Structure formats: C-alpha cells, structure tokens
C-alpha cells in the first residue's frame, strides 16, 4: 500500500529529468522529496499525479498500477506552488469543484465544503474570490479543494515556495497537524532542507534525476550516503578527502598529533551561535560552530593560531564527486565515527 515508483525515466529534449528513479512511500506517511532545482523532484511528483507521462517505469498507488491511468482518474489531490486557483470562482466554487464534477447534490456539496473550510480555517470566506485572499489563504483553499474529493494520496509541489518566511513556518506546522488529522498519504516537494526535516517523517534526497538517499531526517544527517547528501542536508566542511559538520569541529589551544593547525580569520556572532572562520595550513577554509560560552572559555581572537580536532569525520570512498549518482559505494566511516552502518538509498 502507499505509493511505489519503479524505475521511472523521463526525458525532456536532451535533459534527463528522471533517470531510473524508484521510491517507496508507506501508507499514511508524510514524505518529502528534497533536492536542488532541476533534480527531478517535481517531475517525479507530477508523474505520480499523472500530469507527466513517464518514458519508462511504473507508478503504483495503493496496490493498483496507475501508470496508464490519466490524472483525471487517479484520485490524487494535487497542490501547486502558485495555487492554481480558479480565479473566476469563489472559494466555495473552488473547493466544491471536484464534488460538482462528481455530481454530488447541492446540499451534500455545501456540507462538505463548509466542513473543509473549517478544517483549513477559512470559514467565513466562502463567498470571496481568490484575488481577495492572501497567499497563505489561497494555498489553504487549494489544499481544501484537493482534500474535498477524499483523494487516495495528497501531492504538494513546493506548496510554501511562494509565501513569505513567517507564513511558511505557520503553514508547515499546520500541514503537519492536518496530516495527523486526515492520515492521507502525503508527498511534498521542497528544496528547503529545514522545511523537509521539520515536516516530513521520511525524506527522499534527489539530485540530477536520481535518488541519492532516502530515510528519516536523522538517518540522512548522521549517516549520509555520499558527499551530496551530506552537503545538501546540513552544513559541511571539507578537509582533504574528509567531510565534517561545523559543530563537530572542536577548537582547542593544545596541539596534539591528531589536531590540525589553523588561523582564526573571523568570528561572527549570530545570536546564540558563533561562527568561527578559519584557514588551515594548506589554505583550505573551514568554519566551526561554537556556543557563546565555548567562545568565552577559549578566549578566541581573530588572528590567533588554534588547533582543530574534527570529530565524526566522514569520507566517501572512491573518487565520488558531487555529480556522481548514487550506488557507487557505501560510505566508509572513519574510526572516529561511532557507528559505521549507513543506509544506502534505494
């Protein structure tokens, strides 16, 4: 049950949007497709909705092969980044559209629409037109419209991408709650790793038309399958072939055989967090994340020579570069890292 995509391929001209993508979304889960623009995440979502026809591969929705089913018959709810509001209809008309198509009676439509408007907190705005609503309200209307027809799955394409930061944060929390209430299998696309980690139970990281890794936020953060995932999910420093998170760099005044000598270039206070920018002997620039208390204890000054002890270093074997896809290898964790097993992506 849930949604499964097997070996999906899609090409636009000479651009390979999806290159043998397989994902598995458990029934009732909330999953994020995360990746930079052009990674294929929206194409994959649209293929699940039936808005894009795959060149090869299979889409299975709740155990039914939906690959050849047109969008109209897939029973998916789809929410667009720019709302796709029906501008010539009221909020009521928008939310009731799918029900009207399904020939529900007027009384039934009215009851269901008002129930949904309460759910998305738009009750009282039923007679407004979309251009009389704020961006956040329009997107909630679009959600209500998608949910009205009781879809098997809910698909959201960068749903908060066009909204300002404050509204975006509110809607995230709200989407999380809505999912808990409705329990409908949900996939949403985002390029914002913080948003993905905040909202989703499962993340699928995509890059250049491939799935790099999938798993929980903790999995991806602590056991990234490769350099791309490590740098896309959270901040990262590169020291030679090794990668380390800024908060895993220990700054000390004691030289020892494992420490790396570095020059403090700049100290930036970002509220509670302190960002210390350093240059290592070979010219590599790195930064360490310290707390205010740590900074005071160390009495760091710009221009000082300090010693860095990177903790939980990761190294991805082979000459895997950012552009390499997944499947080349499992990462080789250095002894410093406490647990060595890492979930490779599907």
């Amino acid at each position, binding site marked *: 049950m849930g949604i499964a995509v097997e070996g999906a391929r899609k090409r636009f001209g000479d651009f390979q949007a999806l290159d043998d993508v397989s994902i598995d979304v458990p029934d009732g889960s909330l999953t994020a497709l995360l990746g930079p623009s052009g990674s294929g995440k929206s194409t994959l979502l649209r293929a699940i909705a039936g808005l894009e026809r795959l060149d090869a591969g299979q889409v299975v929705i709740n155990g039914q092969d939906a690959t050849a089913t047109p*969008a*109209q018959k897939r029973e998916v709810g789809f929410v667009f980044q720019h709302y796709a509001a029906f501008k010539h209809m009221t909020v009521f008309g928008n939310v009731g559209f799918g029900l009207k198509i399904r020939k529900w009676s007027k009384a039934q439509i009215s009851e269901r629409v008002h129930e949904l408007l309460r759910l998305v907190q738009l009750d009282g705005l039923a007679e407004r037109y979309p251009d009389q609503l704020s961006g956040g309200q329009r997107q909630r209307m679009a959600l209500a419209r998608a949910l009205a027809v009781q879809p098997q799955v809910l698909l959201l394409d960068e749903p908060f991408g066009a909204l300002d930061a404050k509204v975006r944060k509110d809607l995230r929390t709200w989407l999380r709650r809505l999912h808990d209430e409705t329990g409908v299998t949900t996939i949403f696309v985002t390029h914002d790793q913080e948003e993905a980690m905040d909202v989703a139970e499962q993340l699928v990281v995509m890059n250049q038309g491939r799935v790099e890794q999938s798993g929980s936020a903790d999995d991806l953060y602590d056991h990234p399958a490769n350099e791309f995932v490590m740098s896309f999910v959270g901040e990262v420093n590169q020291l030679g072939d090794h990668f380390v998170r800024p908060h895993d760099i220990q700054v000390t005044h004691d030289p020892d055989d494992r420490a790396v000598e570095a020059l403090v270039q700049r100290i930036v206070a970002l509220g509670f967090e302190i960002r210390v920018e350093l240059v290592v002997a070979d010219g590599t620039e790195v930064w360490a994340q310290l707390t205010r208390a740590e900074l005071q204890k160390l009495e760091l000054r710009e221009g000082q020579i300090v010693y860095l002890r990177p903790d939980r270093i990761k190294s991805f074997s082979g000459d895997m570069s950012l552009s390499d896809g997944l499947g080349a290898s499992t990462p080789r964790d250095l002894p410093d890292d406490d647990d060595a097993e890492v979930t490779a992506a599907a």
Partner: protein
Amino acid sequence: MTAKWGLRSLAFGYLGLLLIAPVGMIFYKTFEHGIGPPLDAMTSPDALHAIWLTLLMVAVAVPLNTVFGVGCALLLVRHRWKGNAIIDAVINLPFAISPIVIGLSLFLLYGDQGWFGPTLAEWGIEVLFSVPGMILASIFVSLPFVVRETVPVLQEIGTEQEQAASTLGANAWQTFWRITLPAIRWGVAYGVVLTVARVLGEFGAVTIVSGSISGQTQTLPLFVAKSFEQFNEQAAYAGAIVLALLALTTLLLMSVGGRKAHATKEGS
C-alpha cells in the same frame, strides 16, 4: 503642465479632425430634415433586405469564426508542434491581403472556370452572385480576429488551472467549459466584437463575389455605395447611420455585459 495640455489638445484635435468630424457630418446630414426622410429611406424593400442580409452575414460568419478561432488558439498554444508556425502564418493572410484580392481569389475558385465552381454548379449550388459566396467572403476577411485575441490570453493563464481541474476529476470537455473558457472569455469577447465590426463593414471582397444586385445580394455597405453612386444621398447617409448604430450596439452590449459580470463579482 503646459506640455500636458498641449499634448491633450493635439490628441483631441487629431481625433476630432480625422474621426469625429466626418462621422458627425454624416449624423448631421442624415437628420438635417428630421427623422422622416432617413426613416423612409431605410424602410424601402431594398434597404430592409440589405439590413437583413448584413445581419445574416454576422449570424453565420461570427459563430463559425468564434468556434474556429477558439479551437485554433487552443491548438496553437496548448499543442506545440512544428506545423504551428505554418498555421500561425496562414491565419494572418486575411490581414495581409487586400479584400479585393480575397474577392478575386474566391471568384477564380468558384467561377465557371474555377476548381470548385463547375462541380458545385452540377449539384445546383450557386456560390457566386448569391449568399453562400458572400458568407465565404465574410468568413475569410474576419477569420483572424478571435484567434489573435485569444492566443495571448491563453498563454497568460497558463496550464495549471487546467491541470488542477484534471486532478479533481474533470475530463477535457468539462475542463474546457468550466475552467478554460471562463478564464479566456474577455479575449474571446473582444475578438467577437472585432469580428462583428469587420463583417458588418466588409465591402471589397463582398462586392466582387456578390455582384451587388439590389434586393438580392446587397449588404448594407453595398447598399450605401450604390445609393451614393446613384445620387440618392439620403439613403446613403441613412444606411451609413444604421451601420454605425449596429457596430455601436455590439460594443455597448459587450461593455455592459462586462460591467455586469464585474459588478456581480465585486458585489459578492
């Protein structure tokens, strides 16, 4: 400030001299001796027939060009393929070619020596010097307006609303009637108004194919021209006024309809 007023008077002066004065003169000349003479002129059998024929042209050519225009715009915008460039260029032909040339080309095609003329004559269908030929000419000259006005609006609304409708269970037909058409209705309406105006006023092509036979194949513009040639100025002016009023009515209907639709939307 002075520059602004200067520009304004220039604009008004230009419009006044070129548009308002001639039209005003016609109104003045028509009603110079009261409503009686123009009324008499327009209730003659030939005049009434010309009005009826003109309205018939509008009634046939405008719906056909509207359906074709919307369909063609959908094809051009929503289904991209290489042939579109050719269709796009061909649609502009009526704009590029003089109506007289259009009339001549129809004459050649449907005449006794033409490709279609003899065959159609065998079936008993007379195209030239009769109503079918005039309708063909009217369709030809007014064909591009709805397409040209609809294409940019279709491009502007994009496909997301249509995709949203399809994920909500609407089929292509339902999506067109409930989503696409309401979204492009102003573009289409403007195209229709231009088409009506063009068909009402068409002279060149229709003159050639109709032969301008009084009481038989004479539309209002032809009636006006013939009356003028025969020094029946009263009838010519009155006919011109009726033409102008028909066109104004079309414009008025559209803007009233538009305001009404807008008012219902704002009011709710």
